[in-house]
């Protein structure tokens, strides 16, 4: 009875609660668009994709459903209740186990059968390509060529500032809405500063901008910020998220440090600052090594950059240099992670999902995955692997290299001489000891020693046991003549140390390169299992994206390397690839507005929501290419646009039609990211260091257990901390982008504010709001230190009066002058707090700030903890 009722209820659910049917009822159902995706997701694994088709039933075409399998036809058009497919699915019998087909999907199958089981077009006679794509898949929006649509007409052309506005405003107008009011100049400059350089604007800069009369004041400010070195530090960091930048190998608990990764970080920052064309930037990162000639010595700075750029392909976790790694697994994992990074960052597709079987939702075949793998295989040859250290390429210039070679020679000589002396001592000792033996044994003993161990007869072996000195060598001589050995060792150890001192410091590049002359084959791994290799796969583009006639040579005879990655990189940056620029500009857009036009920056596939403004996305992508792939040009167009000038205030009429603000009828309110928060605290305290580039600021666990801090701990051989953190001096005030990224050691403050874990990369940051963040702003020593620095600075720079101090602190933190009532409240707080501090502290200890500074520091802390500081309008 209960079961019947449940069935009845499920039936009702089919009719009323399905997810997609209601929206779709108006149009007729077609196999390709409506039914195929359901069958592909739930049935094909057994009924189509495997070598053995279960029950002789292949579910990949509508006509094959009609034909059916061993149990007869799967569908009876017009009668879903008579159709085996429907019966098996609704009873829960299929798919095996527990059904995962939703009520909505079942209902859709039923309606499709009832409406005659139609297809959109005649189906192919044969399924030659086992994984042939449908027209719907081939026609998916993101696989189509990028057009450059004409910006639409709008009702209020007066509101347009740059071409992007037209697309947005037209859409808003079509829904009866419009852009919001313009934000005042103070709001805009604060937004622009945090957005472009990740730091707050100084009050005098704000005032100069607000009072500037010239009409292009906004544009001038944008140019100024885009030419600031701080810009590359801010926007380079976005790209480092996508590439999964880390200063450690990850994979194992050891999390080995990557000493040279920082050069890639610096290359990225430099490239952003110099506005390197993205076509070039991408080619260098994918194939910079192939633009050079091995063995990559004596490179000019530009050439070195190309090599360093390939660090992009070395950013994934790599456990192959760690202890106890299962090498086959670890090596293949490096390749898999690199494919993930490349495909999510540049293609906006989760190619990684096709590692073991065809992609469940997107038209990416199992072979496609291996085509991409084949691009990397000559550099990542898992059968002939190079561990991380073996991939380093030295950048010593000739004279330094000569010095190093000379030192190495000297070290070799020292070693030889030491051995010579030891050998002489061995001979001498042996002779002395032999002489002590009875004369009749001496010659036999000598012969026993001189006979190779394997050839000694029984008597000789006995002799050696009886007279252990007969076995002495360099290693054991110490036991016989300890003093002399110690003397020799001391002398040569000193010389070794002296020689080593002369050896120049290493200067290596962490890069990806091929071993010239070796071209490993890429085999398709059945089910992703490297123990089940199948046919060989040639390098190439995903087949759904492959333009007619485009192929990649397996081994370009014109190049010392195979040229595979270079050919692919040129293909991606040819200006004709449908995904690369769409994916890139969508991500740039996301960093300006908080959301991309496509909300899933790494998924432009069949399951993604699609762009909110398809024409705008295409227009920007086309314009980006037309403008020479220059990002700063795109920045200018976006940040000077009307959409970017709006206030963030929610409006009733807009909320009603667009609560998630996909249409951008206002700006989003956004929280500062982890780096921006820390950098801004340091900047307001007047302590931010402007030192760029170089070795990262080290992190290590705090001895007192307060988490990860900026420090270098010294350990003894037992792994205990023997000496506290080294004083890092000014280094601790450097921008956060220069702090070491140990995958296993996120800096406490940054982690709380959602610094991503690089596993392997980060497509989009989280922005959380939890009480531990509040605790950090209230109690953390760094915050307290910086608020005190902030207060000290304010006292130094402002007049003596409390009101003046308050006003300066307020303007520094928020970029606007306080209202009169805000000044009153602030001064009241300062007075009350100073009095209380004064009353509480009896005799002031040396080193503690005076009550006036303390209370000002408390005020600064409140300002920096407030939403007006932590969020950008």
């Amino acid at each position, binding site marked *: 009875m209960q079961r019947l009722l449940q069935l009845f209820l499920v039936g009702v659910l089919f009719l009323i609660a399905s*997810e997609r049917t209601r929206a779709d009822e108006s149009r007729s159902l077609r196999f390709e668009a409506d039914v195929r995706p359901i069958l592909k997701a739930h049935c094909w694994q057994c009924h189509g994709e495997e070598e053995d088709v279960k029950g002789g039933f292949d579910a990949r075409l509508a006509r094959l459903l009609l034909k059916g399998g061993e149990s007869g036809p799967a569908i009876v058009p017009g009668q879903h209740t008579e159709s085996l497919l429907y019966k098996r699915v609704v009873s829960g019998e299929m798919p095996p186990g527990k059904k995962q087909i939703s009520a909505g999907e079942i209902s859709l199958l039923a309606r499709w059968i009832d409406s005659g089981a139609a297809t959109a077009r005649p189906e192919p006679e044969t399924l030659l390509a086992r994984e042939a794509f449908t027209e719907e898949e081939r026609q998916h929006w993101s696989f189509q060529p990028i057009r450059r649509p004409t910006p639409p007409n709008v009702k209020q052309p007066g509101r347009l500032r740059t071409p992007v506005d037209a697309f947005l405003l037209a859409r808003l107008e079509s829904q009866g809405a419009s852009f919001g009011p313009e934000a005042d100049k103070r709001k805009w400059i604060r937004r622009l500063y945090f957005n472009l350089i990740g730091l707050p604007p100084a009050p005098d800069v704000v005032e100069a901008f607000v009072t500037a009369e010239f009409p292009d004041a906004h544009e001038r400010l944008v140019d100024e910020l885009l030419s600031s070195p701080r810009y590359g530090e801010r926007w380079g960091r976005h790209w480092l998220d996508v590439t999964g930048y880390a200063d450690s190998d990850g994979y194992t608990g050891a999390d080995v440090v990557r000493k040279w990764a920082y050069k890639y970080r610096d290359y990225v920052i430099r490239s952003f600052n110099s506005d390197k064309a993205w076509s070039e930037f991408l080619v260098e990162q994918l194939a910079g090594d192939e633009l050079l000639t091995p063995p990559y010595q004596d490179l000019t700075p530009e050439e070195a950059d190309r090599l360093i750029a390939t660090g992009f392909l070395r950013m994934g976790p790599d456990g192959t240099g760690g202890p106890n790694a299962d090498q086959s697994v670890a090596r293949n994992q490096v390749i898999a992670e690199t494919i993930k990074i490349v495909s999510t960052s540049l293609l906006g597709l989760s190619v990684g999902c096709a590692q073991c079987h065809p992609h469940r939702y997107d038209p990416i075949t199992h072979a496609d995955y291996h085509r991409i793998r084949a691009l990397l295989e000559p550099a990542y040859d898992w059968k002939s692997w190079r561990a991380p250290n073996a991939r380093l390429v030295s950048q010593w210039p000739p004279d330094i290299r000569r010095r190093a070679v000379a030192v190495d020679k000297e070290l070799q000589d020292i070693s030889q001489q030491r051995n010579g002396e030891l050998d002489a001592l061995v001979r001498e000792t042996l002779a002395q000891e032999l002489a002590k033996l009875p004369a009749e044994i001496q010659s036999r003993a000598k012969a026993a020693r001189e006979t190779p161990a394997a050839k000694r007869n029984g008597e000789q072996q006995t002799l050696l046991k009886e007279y252990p000195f007969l076995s002495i060598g360099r290693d054991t001589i110490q036991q016989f003549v300890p003093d002399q050995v110690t003397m020799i060792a001391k002398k040569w150890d000193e010389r070794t140390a002296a020689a080593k001192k002369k050896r120049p410091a290493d200067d290596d590049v962490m890069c990806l390169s091929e071993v010239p002359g070796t071209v490993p084959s890429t085999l398709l791994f059945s089910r992703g299992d490297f123990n089940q290799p199948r046919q060989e796969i040639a390098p190439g583009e995903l087949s759904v994206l492959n333009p007619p006639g485009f192929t990649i040579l397996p081994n370009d005879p014109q190049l010392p390397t195979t040229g595979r990655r270079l050919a692919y990189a040129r293909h991606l940056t040819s200006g004709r690839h449908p995904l690369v620029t769409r994916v890139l500009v969508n991500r740039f857009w996301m960093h300006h507005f908080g959301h991309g036009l496509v909300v899933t920056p790494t998924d432009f596939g069949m399951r993604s929501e699609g762009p909110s403004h398809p024409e705008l996305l295409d227009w920007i992508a086309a314009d980006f290419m037309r403008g020479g792939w220059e990002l700063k040009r795109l920045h200018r167009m976006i940040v000077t646009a009307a959409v970017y000038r709006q206030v963030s205030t929610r409006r009733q009429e807009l909320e009603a039609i667009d609560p998630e603000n996909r249409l951008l009828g206002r700006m989003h309110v956004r929280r500062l990211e982890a780096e921006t928060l820390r950098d801004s605290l340091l900047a307001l305290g007047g302590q931010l260091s402007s030192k760029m580039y170089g070795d990262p600021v080290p992190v290590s666990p705090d001895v007192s257990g307060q988490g990860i801090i900026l420090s270098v701990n010294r350990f003894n051989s037992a792994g205990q901390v023997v000496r506290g953190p080294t004083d890092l001096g000014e280094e601790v005030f450097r921008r956060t982008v220069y702090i070491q990224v140990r995958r296993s050691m996120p800096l406490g403050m940054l982690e709380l504010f959602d610094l991503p874990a690089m596993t392997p990369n980060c497509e989009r940051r989280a922005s959380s709001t939890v*009480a*531990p963040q509040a605790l950090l702003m209230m109690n953390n020593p760094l915050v307290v230190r910086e608020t005190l620095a902030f207060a000290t600075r304010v006292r130094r720079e402002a007049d003596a009066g409390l009101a003046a101090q308050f006003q300066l602190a307020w303007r520094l933190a928020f970029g606007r002058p306080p209202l009169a009532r805000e000044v009153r*409240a602030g001064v009241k707080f300062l007075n009350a707090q100073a009095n209380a501090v004064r009353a509480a502290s009896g005799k002031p200890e040396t080193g503690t700030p005076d009550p006036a500074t303390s209370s000002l520091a408390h005020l600064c802390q409140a300002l920096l903890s407030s939403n*007006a500081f932590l969020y950008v309008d």
Partner: protein
Amino acid sequence: MLHGTRRHFISQQVFGLGSLAMAWLLNQDNLLADPTKPELESRAFDLKPRPPVRAPQATAMISMFMQGGPSQVDLFDPKPELKRRHLQDYIGDIHYDAVGQASTKLFSGPWQFSKRGECGMELTELLPQMGRIADDICLIRSMHTGISGHEPSIRAMNTGRFLQGRPSLGSWLVYALGSENQDLPAFMVLRDPTGTPVLSVENWQNAWLPSIFQGTVVRPQEPRIANLDPPVSLRGATQRRILSYLQGINRDHFERHPGEHDLAARMQSYDMAARMQVAAKEALDISQETAWTHKLYGIDDAVTRDYGTRCLIARRLIERGVRFVQIFSGNQHWDHHSGIVKSLPEVCRKTDKPTAALVMDLKRRGLLDKTLVHWGGEMGRLPVIQNEKNIGRDHNGRGFSMWLAGGGVKAGWVHGATDEVGHKAVEDVVNHYDYHATLLYLFGLDSQQASFTRANGTGSLIDGQPGQVVAPILQHPPPLT
């Protein structure tokens, strides 16, 4: 019908009536007369306790999420047939999770099962302490998600579906019910010291629910919550005045930003943080517990100390009115692709005693009746070998075991079954939708309370999926309609 439920509910609640249950009693008529309205954008969100629409049987939950996929055939689901066919080829259809080293040889672990408790539940010798709570738990041997990658499986079990970007279970519960304790986060996460779990923050994210409903992570080592102590110079009234001034400027700012939930959540986070300085310190201070209790949880033993401490903290949090606590096992500790014979006993040793202690302790304190305890991973493991050289087992999302205890589920009860070798769930199959529908039922929630209006429609934990309350495992199943 309703009165029957209510009477029954009251008769059960002579002692230890939580404020949630009380609120339900006081409010139910009003609520029935005035159904919950869909949220308006201007709605403010808080963590005040909210009554469910039906009498709740559970008012709090501790979920022990054993990431990696504990091996059901070695721990919870004895299979004589598997033993009999040990090392024979399995001919049935099997879904390997695609990683290497797949084998078709069946493998029966070297461990014995025995009947435990009065109920005679068969459990492995690897979990002797859990055997002591056999009469308190409800073991489900027929779990099924149908998928077997870690990420989608975790999403299925912890966010309702295998899609990305959905609110976690804890976020739904505190969104719907608030918290009994306004001095501690309503949803707390106890992470393992060996690393963040797979999917990291996604495990406790609020996604498109307002940010006040996201999980707060308790650090795996001391200080469990960083920055809990103000510097000497800021203690007491000094900090209170700073916070009071801060809230003043935040209120002004919020007035200019109506409808920005995140700003409101941050304002509330400072109130919470201020109270946590005392409350969290007290709640996390296990030195207040007796030596006996420490011993019970295995805190006196290096092997069980870490997990035991977290179990004890979970109890202390629940005792103080925290709505949802999730304990994560180490980073994939249960993911035994190889070396299972050695490593499965190790992870069992670390977790067995504290787990049993938690259930016993909750029961002893009268908390188990209203606290739902969950123990389980995102999937189970295959009955066949992975890696014949160093035997392990591959993922299996088509049949696995987990257990619930307290909070209205039957005690000493086994539900469902897998096939003869423990591969696929075949009898009374429970999938993730069913599991979540059952949770909502136990908490007295209807679909309305656990849903949120979004731009593209209403989002909910169940989200229109065919989830059904698993009536046979409930002490008080829903009446037939």
